[in-house]
C-alpha cells in the first residue's frame, strides 16, 4: 500500500467524540478574503471578530480577542445553509426504524423537530461541505400540507435546534391519484374560511366565538405573515395560481422546485418570491418539468428572482451543495450570486439570523483552502455559533481502519 498515509486513528476518535467546548471565547480571524454576502461585498485582508456566537466586529481598529487566527489570505464565507432535506430525521433511508420524516397522519401541525437527532452520522458528514445550519423539511403524510420546517445547526449538540415551526410546507402539482385542482381549491378554501372566521370573531359575542383549532392557528399564522408558505410545485399554471393566492391573502410565499419558473420569471421577481431549486435538475422527469435546465438558476437570477440552491433527493449527499453552486456558475450564474444562493438567500427566505457576515449576525463561518465551489477545495476550519467544529466523520475512521497496516484483524484498529 504505497500511497497510504498512516493516521493516528486516536486523533480521529477524539474528533468524533465531538466538541464539548462551551466557554465563551473571542476569536479574531485576520488576513482573510471575507465574502460578506452583504452590500459590503468582498473585503480583502480583512478581520472578523466573534464572541458568544455572534460576529462582534469587522475590520476593527484594534484587534482584541482571546485567539487570533491568521487566514493567510484564504476565503472566509458565511456557513452554507442546507434546505428542504431530512437531515437528522433519517439515518438510513431504507431502515424504517431510523426514519422520522414522515407519518401517514401528519398534517399542517406536524413538528418533526421533536425527532431531530444531532448525533446522526449525516450531520458530521455534511460539515465536509461547509454546511453550518439547515432548514429541515419533513415529508408529511397523505395531507397536502406536509408539516412545518425547522432549523438546526450542525454542531451535533443536543441544543442544535434554532427555531421550529418556522414555515409551512405544501405539496402541489402533479398527483398520481386525483387532480391537482382539488389541492389548489382546498388551499384557497382554507384561507378564505380562516379570513371569514377572523371577521366573524369580531361580530360574535365571546360565548359563541370558538377558540381556533390548532390547524386553524397555523393558517392564521400564514395569513398574518408569521410563517412562510413553502410550496413545492413545478408547472407554470400551479406557480401562477399560487402567485394569485399570495396576492389575495398577502402571504409570504416560497417556491420549491419550480421547474417552469423560467417561463414566468418576471412575475415571480415582481412578487418577490424566492425559488428554492436543485441546480443540477435538468431532465424532463415529468410533464411538469419540461423546462428543467442547468441554466435555470442563472436565468432566474438574471431576471431578478432570488434563488436559493438545495440538494434535493437523498440527504446523505447534502455535503455537495457547494458543488451544485459550482455547476450553476459553470452554467452562467455569477460566483457572488452562487454564494448568496447557498447562504443569504436561504436565510432571507426562511427568516434566519445567519447567511451573511455582518456585525450582530450568528457566527457561522467557513474558512476554505481555496475557491469554495471547486472540487479540489476543502474546508480548512469552520465555526458554528462561534465555536470551531471538525469535519472529521465516521467515513474517515473507516478509511483509516482499512488503510492502516496491522497484523491483527481490522476490528482491532480503532
Amino acid at each position, binding site marked *: 500500500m504505497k500511497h497510504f498515509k498512516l493516521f493516528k486513528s486516536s486523533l480521529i476518535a477524539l474528533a468524533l467524540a465531538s466538541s464539548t467546548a462551551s466557554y465563551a471565547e473571542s476569536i479574531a480571524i485576520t488576513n482573510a478574503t471575507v465574502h460578506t454576502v452583504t452590500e459590503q461585498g468582498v473585503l480583502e485582508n480583512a478581520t472578523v471578530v466573534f464572541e458568544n456566537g455572534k460576529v462582534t466586529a469587522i475590520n476593527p481598529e484594534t484587534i482584541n480577542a482571546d485567539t487570533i487566527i491568521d487566514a493567510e489570505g484564504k476565503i472566509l464565507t458565511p456557513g452554507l445553509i442546507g434546505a428542504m432535506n431530512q437531515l437528522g430525521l433519517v439515518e*438510513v*433511508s431504507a431502515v424504517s426504524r431510523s426514519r422520522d420524516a414522515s407519518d401517514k397522519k401528519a398534517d399542517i401541525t406536524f413538528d418533526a423537530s421533536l425527532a431531530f437527532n444531532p448525533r446522526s452520522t449525516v450531520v458530521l458528514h455534511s460539515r465536509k461541505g461547509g454546511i453550518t445550519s439547515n432548514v429541515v423539511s419533513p415529508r408529511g403524510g397523505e395531507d397536502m400540507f406536509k408539516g412545518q420546517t425547522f432549523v438546526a445547526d450542525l454542531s451535533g449538540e443536543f441544543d442544535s435546534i434554532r427555531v421550529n415551526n418556522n414555515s409551512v410546507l405544501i405539496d402541489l402539482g402533479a398527483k398520481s391519484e386525483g387532480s391537482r385542482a382539488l389541492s389548489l381549491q382546498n388551499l384557497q378554501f382554507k384561507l378564505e374560511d380562516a379570513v371569514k372566521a377572523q371577521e366573524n370573531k369580531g361580530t360574535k359575542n365571546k360565548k359563541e366565538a370558538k377558540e381556533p383549532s390548532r390547524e386553524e392557528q397555523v393558517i392564521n399564522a400564514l395569513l398574518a405573515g408569521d410563517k412562510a408558505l413553502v410550496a413545492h410545485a413545478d408547472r407554470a399554471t400551479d406557480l401562477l395560481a399560487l402567485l394569485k393566492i399570495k396576492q389575495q391573502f398577502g402571504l409570504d410565499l416560497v417556491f420549491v422546485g419550480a421547474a417552469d419558473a423560467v417561463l414566468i420569471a418576471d412575475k415571480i421577481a415582481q412578487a418577490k418570491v424566492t425559488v428554492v431549486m436543485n441546480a443540477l435538475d435538468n*431532465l*424532463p422527469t415529468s410533464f411538469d418539468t419540461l423546462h428543467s435546465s442547468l441554466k435555470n438558476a442563472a436565468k432566474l437570477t438574471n431576471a431578478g428572482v432570488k434563488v436559493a440552491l438545495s440538494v434535493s433527493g437523498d440527504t446523505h449527499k447534502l455535503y455537495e451543495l457547494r458543488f451544485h453552486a459550482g455547476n450553476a456558475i459553470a452554467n452562467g450564474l455569477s460566483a457572488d450570486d452562487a454564494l448568496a444562493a447557498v447562504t443569504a438567500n436561504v436565510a432571507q427566505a426562511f427568516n434566519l439570523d445567519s447567511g451573511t457576515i455582518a456585525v450582530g449576525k450568528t457566527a457561522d463561518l467557513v474558512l476554505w483552502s481555496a475557491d469554495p465551489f471547486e*472540487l479540489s477545495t476543502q474546508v480548512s476550519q469552520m465555526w458554528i455559533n462561534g465555536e470551531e467544529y471538525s469535519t472529521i466523520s465516521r467515513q474517515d475512521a*473507516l*478509511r483509516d481502519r482499512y488503510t492502516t497496516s496491522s497484523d491483527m484483524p481490522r476490528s482491532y484498529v480503532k
Partner: protein
Amino acid sequence: MQKFLPSLVSAALAVALTGCLQSEQQNERVVINKNPYPSTYKALPLQTTLIKNATVLTGTGSRLDNADVLMVDGKINQIGTDIVAEGAVEIDANGKWITPGIIDVHSHLGVYPNPSVESHADGNEMTSPNTSEVWAEHSVWPQDPGFEAAREGGITTLQILPGSANLFGGRGVTLRNVPSHTMQGMKFPDAPYGLKMACGENPKRVYGSRKVLPSTRMGNMAGYRMAWADATEYKRAWEKYDADYDAGKNPLAPERDIELDTLKGVLDGDILIHNHCYKAEEMAMMIDLGKEFNYHSGTFHHAVEAYKIADMLAENGNCAAMWPDWWGFKMEAYDMVHENVAIVDAMKNSCAVVHSDSDSTIQRLNQEAGKVMYRANENGFEVTPELAITWITANAAKSLGLADETGSLENGKKADVVIWNQNPFSVYAQAEQVFVDGAKVYDRFDEKYQAKSDFLLGQR
C-alpha cells in the same frame, strides 16, 4: 428460429457424400444464433480531424502537454506534436484538454427514461428472482432525453443494465451514445453482453415480501447456486449434442431455454458478469461462487465496501465500479468512504471504475472521478489527472470487454474523443466537442451538433 452454420452444414454433407463413415442420417444441426438483434450502428458523417495544442490525457496513464491528436477514418491515427495533416479539419485546442470518450458501465437510460412515467418503467422484470431470459436492449427507448444530456457530458459509450431486484436481472447491452430511432442503431457492434446479478438487500426484500425465495442472504446464495447448477447441466447437454453430432450421430437437440442460454453464455465465457454488490463479505462469496461454477465473477457494481477487500479484487482480476460519495440510503451502503475508488486503484493489477447509475451524474462522471481524486490526495494518495481519467475510460472499457476498441487514445483505436474547456476534473469543466468513431456528435457552440429527442420536439 433455428439457424445453421453453413460450414458445419457443408461438412456434414461432405461426410454423407463420401460415405466413408458408418453414420446415421443426420437432421440439420441445431445451432443457436447468438446475435439475433444485430447492431445497425454506423458512424455519423466524419471528416479527418486534427486537434492542435491541447493537454491530452490518453487513458493509458499518460499526460501530454501541447499535443496534437489526428483522427482519420474514425480511428486515432496519430498523437504527438506538430502533426501536419493536409485537408484535415483543424481545431485549435490551446488551453483545452482532451480525453478519451467517457464510458459509463452502469446506466439505466432508455429503460428507466425521462419522463419517468408508469408507461416507461421498463428497467426491471420484477416477476421472478431469476430473469436471465430478459434482455435490457428490448426495453430501450432511444428517445430518452437522458442520452442527449449524457452526450453533453462527454459520454460516448454506456452499458444499459436491468435493475437489481432479481438475483439474475437479465442481459445488459452496450450502446454508442449516438442518436438513433432504433436500439440497434445505437448498439455497440460486437460488444459482449453483460449479465446483471444482484447481491444483498434488493432481491431478498422484493421476493421475501412475496414469501418466495430469497428472503435472506443465504437464500440469495442458494438461488444463484441452483441456477448455475441448472446452467451447468444445460451446457453439458449442448456439449453432448455437439459432440454426438460431430461424431456422426443424429442426436436430439436439447430443448431450447432462453433463460439458460444466457447463463450458459456466461459459462462459455461469452457474457460478462456485472454484479450489483455492496458489501465486502458478499463480494468475497461471489468470487468463490464464480470459482465453484467455473466462470469469472466479473465487475462488482456499487461496491461501497470494495476498499475492505481491495487486495482480493485485484488478485482475482475483478473490476469494481463505484460512486465517489453515495451512501446511507440502505444499510449495505452505510460504510462509504470517499477514497474507495482510490484504495481499490492503488493495488497492483487493479481495475477501479467510476460509474453513475444515475441519469444525473452520468452527465458529470468527470466530476465524480475528480471528487475521488481530490479527497484521496487530501489523505495521503497521489492521484494524478492522467490516472483518474482511467476510472471513466480505459478501466470502464476493460470492464465491458472493450479494452481493445475504446477507452484510450492510441493509434488504431476508435476515435472516441472529448474536448474539454479546461481540466476535466474542475467543477467548471464542460465538454465542448464530442466525437464517436471520429464523427462529431456534439458541439456546445454549434446547434447543428445538438441533437434533440423526439419527446422534447415541439414542446412549449
